């Protein structure tokens, strides 16, 4: 087997726990490896990694797991991460490297791509292997989702970041449990993470959620956001917001969906009191299902909604929360 068929997944940990996107990438990698006769190697960098979870990586389709466990990888210090990931790539010599299109992946991969002289395709939503050439076909949205582009890297290492929640995790593989450890390489870093602030209020997780409930100016004030939070809690959903709601100071910027906020692609997006301005739409219209509640039947949000209700959100949202209870 040529090393060029090898698919290396750059895994990701939140605290000690291996993040869901890593499993998704392993399963997609396994799918691709059937087409290019390759193998799937997953690197898990982190600290005090929950090794029991490696079981799940093999079931998801991994051929080999490389653990890179060190105190200095507890926080995302890019310099320490890059030094070690680059060394793993040099040792493994993969033809394809995939990472999640998470803040971590989108921070590390562009820097790796330069040092590795690799082509890097951002934020992919579809991957395939080209027949004949065996090259990776990477499809991604650009222009705020107005355009889809398929990209390939014919001559260099092929790298992509892949959106979370796009690929399904398989659990049916029975692979040999081949686990190795990579010894951390130390060095200096001009960066120092003084504190990693993780609070409930800051838990936004827009990119990782299957369901997002968003509120807009129609909420009227900050206290009224409770109806959004209540519905979100019932659905185990993340809370999003329009820019108008953020600018009004009702909710923090991390919740903003849209062109100058976050682009999301959940299974279900519920918009409450959001008019659906184009800058909001570009951030959410790729959701599988969109439900919109707005009292103005001409609101543009209805043009993209699969299910629209013209009515008062303060009547509708609490009733829906009840029904879901």
């Amino acid at each position, binding site marked *: 087997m040529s090393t060029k068929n090898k698919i290396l997944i750059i895994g990701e940990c939140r605290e000690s726990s291996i993040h869901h996107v890593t499993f998704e990438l392993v399963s997609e990698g396994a799918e691709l490896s059937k087409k290019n006769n390759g193998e799937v190697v997953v690197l898990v960098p982190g600290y005090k990694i929950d090794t029991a979870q490696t079981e799940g990586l093999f079931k998801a389709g991994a051929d080999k797991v490389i653990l890179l466990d060190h105190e200095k990888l507890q926080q995302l210090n890019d310099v320490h991460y890059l030094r070690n990931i680059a060394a793993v790539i040099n040792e493994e010599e993969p033809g394809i490297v995939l990472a999640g299109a998470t803040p971590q992946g989108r921070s590390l991969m562009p820097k790796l791509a330069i040092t590795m002289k690799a082509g890097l395709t951002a934020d992919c939503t579809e991957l395939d292997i080209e027949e004949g050439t065996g090259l990776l076909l990477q499809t991604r949205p650009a222009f705020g989702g107005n355009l889809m582009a398929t990209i390939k890297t014919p001559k260099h290492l092929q790298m992509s970041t892949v959106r979370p929640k796009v690929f399904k995790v398989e659990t049916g593989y029975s692979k040999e449990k081949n686990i190795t450890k990579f010894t951390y390489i130390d060095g200096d870093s001009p960066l120092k993470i003084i504190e990693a602030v993780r609070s409930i209020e800051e838990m936004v997780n827009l990119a990782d959620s299957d369901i997002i409930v968003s509120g807009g100016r129609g909420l009227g004030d900050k206290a009224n956001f409770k109806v959004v939070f209540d519905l979100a809690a019932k659905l185990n959903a993340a809370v999003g917001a329009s820019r108008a709601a953020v600018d009004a100071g009702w909710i923090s910027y991390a919740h903003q969906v849209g062109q100058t906020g976050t682009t999301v692609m959940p299974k279900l997006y519920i918009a409450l009191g959001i008019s659906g301005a184009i800058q909001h739409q570009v951030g959410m219209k790729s959701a599988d299902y969109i439900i919109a509640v707005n009292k103005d039947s001409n609101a543009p949000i209805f043009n993209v909604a699969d299910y629209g*209700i013209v009515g008062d959100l303060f009547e509708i949202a609490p009733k829906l929360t009840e029904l879901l209870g």
Partner: protein
Amino acid sequence: MKRVVVFIKQVPDTAELKIDPVTNTMIREGVPSIINPFDMYAIEEALKIKDKWGDTETVVMTMGPPQADAALREAISMGIDKGILLSDKKFAASDTWATSYILSKAVEKLGDFDVLIAGKQATDGDTAQVGPGVATWLKIPSVTYVRKIDELEPGHAKVERMRSEGFDIIEVKGKFLMTVLKELNEPRIPSFRGKMAAKKAEIPVWGADDLNTDEANIGFTGSPTRVVKAFTPPPKKGGIKVEGDDLETVKGVFKFIKENHLA
């Protein structure tokens, strides 16, 4: 004198983009060009740094066609000291790898600097790769998704980086590059004096020869990635629309959620 360099990109105003309903392709003719929205926050931050440090030159750079000159002048009208246009036929079709190489060569030509600032992401290419790429070429660290600056002095900074589950407080030693978010500031409105300065400003144009770029690293040949196909996703059609806020109506949406196994 201290120096802050900002990278800006001219992009089509996505709010004005329309899809041809017959061919299902993007109509770009007549779509106005604007400064990439995230870059406005980068410009503003550079101006704030200058306000604080004094004795600082603020420079904006863009790589693009000759008409990108307008973006540089707009930045100058906001108070930026100097604009540089990186334009050459040989730069055309550069991917993010090649673009960041070209920008890094321009920074080298410019000389010393203290901080580099880029937007989080351009609204057309949408990759968020150019900023960190430039830093890597220049062998300096970068911090992406900066939402707040706690301290910033030449050679030392403390900034907050947004994460999906919170934020990191990061200390940086030495020169560095940051990519910035909307949360950071409120871009100022151009002043009358700024507009005059923008009109009069001389914008140098640097090409491949000026930058001494390696042909193997620029343009189409220097780009590892190739766009092999571009297509417009099928337009989303509005679906069911009902009116009312009584329980029966809400039961309808509840059923929709259940039927589609959404919760």
